[in-house]
């Protein structure tokens, strides 16, 4: 539909900020969303993601900074003059208009007289051709959501903004709509900026995710990159679960960092450490629960060489079908979480058992020890 190399759909925010009195909702922020990409702003409520979105839409006036659409500075344009459309969290369908008129609203406001063909096509695209003459309250949540998307897309905006569009749907429908939205985006090739607090949703749908916290972007990148190589404890905890060990740098070779934790040593690839590592300094060593293997202490000799290892005792275990989740207390860190696939279950691994936790050093990541290891845990809940 739109030429993918046309820079008209780039969204560029430079130094954009929003303050309400003494409260800063968004700290000065630079962000570029390339044309045709599916971009997610991810964060807990109150992190500034919706404010950022509303500043792009023109519904909120930035306290500082500039919004560019392609090469055009749109900062001073009111929303009704921006080639940008929004899918609102509660859909905001006009209750006094039927579905057809809701979808036709934007076209009519721009002075188009014959809208029937376009609206019918758009309703067919979202599979609501039959419902054209119903009022919004007569549709189900999922249908209303599709109307909201159709109402925005029919205007061929340069950017489509989605403000928690799936928040009101139940889990199953949400999964379905995630795929549906992704399909539509691929089909029309319009830039999507999607705001959500659901990390799985962001990772499933977006090409690029920006994790926001307290008015700042903590980290920006592809979903796998964010998950495998988080650069702050907030990102590590907000996206999935992480275990942290505070360790001291023993030596540093340029390729690998060797760390001391408790009595043992841990290896961390230099490239995966976002903190400055100087011998004697502290580093937070992180590892995801599913990367860890559990071996009963009696079999410790069978663990291959070269793996990071920690000893501990199982404090709790819960069987959840595909996997078993263990909580392991160890001298270096209490409450270590381990997810083990239920392939070959060792019957000795019950609470109280002495175990060795081990993992490939390549799965270790290092963070600045000065931050709170629990940041983002509550927000992710």
């Amino acid at each position, binding site marked *: 539909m739109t030429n993918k190399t046309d820079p008209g759909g780039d969204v560029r925010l430079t130094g954009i900020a929003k303050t309400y009195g003494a409260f800063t909702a968004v700290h000065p922020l630079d962000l570029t969303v390339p044309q045709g990409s599916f971009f997610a702003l991810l964060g807990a409520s109150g992190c500034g993601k919706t404010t950022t979105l509303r500043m792009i*839409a*023109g*519904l909120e006036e930035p306290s500082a900074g500039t919004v560019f659409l392609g090469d055009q500075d749109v900062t001073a344009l*009111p*929303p*009704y*003059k921006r080639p*940008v*459309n*929004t899918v*609102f*969290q*509660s859909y*905001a*369908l*006009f*209750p*006094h208009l039927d579905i057809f008129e809701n979808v036709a*609203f*934007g076209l009519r*406001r*721009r002075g188009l007289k014959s809208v029937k063909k376009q609206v019918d096509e758009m309703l067919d695209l979202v599979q609501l051709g039959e419902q054209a*003459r*119903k*009022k919004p309250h*007569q549709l189900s949540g999922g249908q209303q959501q599709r109307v909201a998307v159709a*109402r*925005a897309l029919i*205007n061929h905006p340069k950017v489509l903004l989605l403000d928690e569009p799936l928040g009101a749907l139940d889990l199953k429908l949400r999964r379905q709509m995630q795929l549906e939205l992704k399909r539509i985006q691929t089909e029309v090739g319009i830039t999507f900026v999607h705001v959500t607090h659901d990390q799985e949703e962001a990772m499933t749908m977006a090409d690029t995710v920006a994790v926001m916290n307290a008015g700042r972007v903590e980290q920006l990148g592809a979903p796998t990159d964010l998950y495998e190589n988080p650069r702050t404890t907030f990102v590590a905890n907000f996206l999935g679960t992480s275990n942290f060990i505070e360790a001291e740098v023993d030596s540093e070779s340029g390729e690998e960092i060797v760390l001391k934790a408790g009595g043992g040593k841990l290896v961390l690839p230099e490239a995966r450490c976002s903190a400055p590592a100087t011998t004697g300094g502290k580093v937070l060593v992180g590892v995801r629960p599913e990367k860890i293997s559990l071996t009963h202490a009696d079999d410790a000799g069978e663990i291959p060489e070269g793996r990071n290892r920690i000893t501990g005792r199982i404090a709790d275990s819960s069987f959840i079908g595909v996997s078993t989740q263990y909580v392991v207390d160890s001298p270096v860190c209490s409450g270590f979480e381990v997810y083990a696939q239920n392939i070959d279950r060792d019957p000795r691994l019950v609470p109280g058992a002495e175990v060795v936790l081990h993992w490939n050093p390549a799965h270790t990541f290092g963070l600045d020890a000065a931050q709170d290891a629990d940041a983002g845990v509550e927000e992710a809940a």
Partner: protein
Amino acid sequence: MPFVNWLKRNLVVLAGLLTLGYLLLPNVVVTVFSFNKPKGRFNYEWQQFSLDAWKDPCGVSGLCGSLSLSLQIAVWATLGATLLGTLIAFALVRYRFRARGAVNSLIFLPMAMPEVVMAASLLTLFLNMGAQLGFWTILIAHIMFCLSFVVTAVKARVMSMDPKLEEAARDLYAGPFQTFVRVTLPIAAPGIAAGALLAFALSFDDFIITNFNAGSTVTFPMFVWGSAQRGTPVQINVIGTTMFVVAVLFVLVSMLAGNRRNRQKA
């Protein structure tokens, strides 16, 4: 004791229905006595059935004149109060401004003030200004006391309205004026209509404030009041019955129409 148990369970229903009877009894009496043929000047005792009054509702001098005057005043007062009240309601819900508290009190006080106090003080003002009492003073007074009720009705509706709807309209290329006409006004319409209906009923039926500020002009309630001293013509009951029936029919029809509309759309 099944009967005692039944009574216990339905006591509140019985009590409620008794109250409803208390509320409706006077209307029944008004209707029945519109078919009376009283002896003497007062229509308080049943004599014999007659359709005389129904055949000649305007047969009493001044009655229909006062009725049409009341209708005129009610229409103008409704228009005035609805317009001014809607503007205030929007300002109160949609904007932050200084003196908000004072404005709220000024809206609330007329509703918390006994009518006789407002009536007397307004008359003092008119006397001091040397105003000619009549149609205009009545209209001014009616707009004044209907205003607060309109504000309350419209405010409730506008407050319950999702501000996102207007944002959505602006996002979909509707400028401020278009947004107001295409989205805000249609959605606020039921509240405005409720306020207008209330204003009409209040104005049409007002006696105390009108009585103080009417001079020698006679509205329908004042005609009724005067006839209570001089003699009550049966035609008053005819008018009262007609008003009741028209009101009930109006509400029933609009409700049935609403139901059918919903069913068709469903």
